[in-house]
């Protein structure tokens, strides 16, 4: 009996180590997109809003470029600064290819985000980033067409009258204007760059 217990006491740690190291699964790598992908891709919902550049801004104007659509607001204190910082880093990482990528940041807070405020806010991240605003009903329609949501909530910052709870994913639109990817919040910069490069090099 004692011998059996001793053998078990010696065998168990050995089996533990063998099972841990011998059966460790290989790290899976994504061959295609690292973000969510739509199959088959459909045309991205169209919109025309007031651009931060002082003119009307339509998604259609950016056919031929890869477009990133983001919903947010300039007073956002948690989600938007992280996403905009990631995108700033992603654009830097793309180098010259970034000129073929356009970020369109659509506000979910038209009461406070006018074109001037959007321009000032976005320029601090990247002068090429564009903002869009409009009438609340127009913005609501755009949100709905993308399946995104936004609602006013109590702000934890006493200096702000309210905050907005909003969808935090990025929508990737290819050069043909098709909605191709959905990038969840806090996706690593490398993964964003990887997917943007795939869209930039895609032929059709």
């Amino acid at each position, binding site marked *: 009996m004692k011998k059996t217990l001793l053998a078990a006491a010696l065998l168990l740690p050995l*089996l*533990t180590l063998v*099972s*841990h190291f011998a*059966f*460790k*699964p*290989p*790290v*899976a790598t*994504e061959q295609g*997109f*690292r*973000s*969510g*992908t*739509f*199959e*088959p891709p*459909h045309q991205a919902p169209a919109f025309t809003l007031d651009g931060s550049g002082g003119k009307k801004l339509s998604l259609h104007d950016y056919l031929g470029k890869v477009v990133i659509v983001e919903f947010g607001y300039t007073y956002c204190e948690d989600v938007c600064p992280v996403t905009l910082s990631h995108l700033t880093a992603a654009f830097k990482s793309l180098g010259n290819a970034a000129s073929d990528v356009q970020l369109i940041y659509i506000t979910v807070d038209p009461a406070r985000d006018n074109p001037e405020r959007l321009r000032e806010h976005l320029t601090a991240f990247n002068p090429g980033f564009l903002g869009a605003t409009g009438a609340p009903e127009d913005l609501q329609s755009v949100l709905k*067409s*993308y*399946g*995104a*949501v936004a609602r006013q909530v109590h702000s934890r910052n006493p200096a702000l009258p309210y905050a907005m709870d909003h*969808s*935090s*994913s990025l*929508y990737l639109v290819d050069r043909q204007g098709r909605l191709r990817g*959905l990038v*969840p919040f806090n996706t690593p910069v490398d*993964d964003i760059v990887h997917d943007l490069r795939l869209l930039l090099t895609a032929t059709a």
Partner: protein
Amino acid sequence: MIPGAAPAPARPHRRLAVIVAGLFLTPVLIASLWPVTFDSREELFEIPKGTFARHMAGDHHDLLPSEIDLVVGIHNVLTLKNSDDVPQTFGPTLLMPGQSLRIPFTRASENNFNCTAHANGQLLVLVEDTPTWPWERLSWRLRRLLRSLSPS
């Protein structure tokens, strides 16, 4: 033992204890040491044709589970296919009829998605790290067993 005396009878309670311990420990050992594997990295869920019509008719029975469990690296791709006749909201996006959305998850996370195919409008996608140590595998299997036994 005294020479010439009859051998002591085997203690039946000890034998029984060994058998019971063996019956209990064998599955525990297997559940601890056997690696967690899946046939595919992909978990496919389909919103069946007629889901919207059934909801409109007052049938709020969920056809999809309210929680989907994934494991980083070995079973980490969620594919949702909309086979219904109308667009369905999944997470922050609309899925058109016939369209599917494939999302690979690369990190352990808890993801709450809006989903119009659910009566309560919510879907939880729980992504866990791959259990590689025996106690992790045992705990993972126990949690999975408990979840499968509990009514959803």
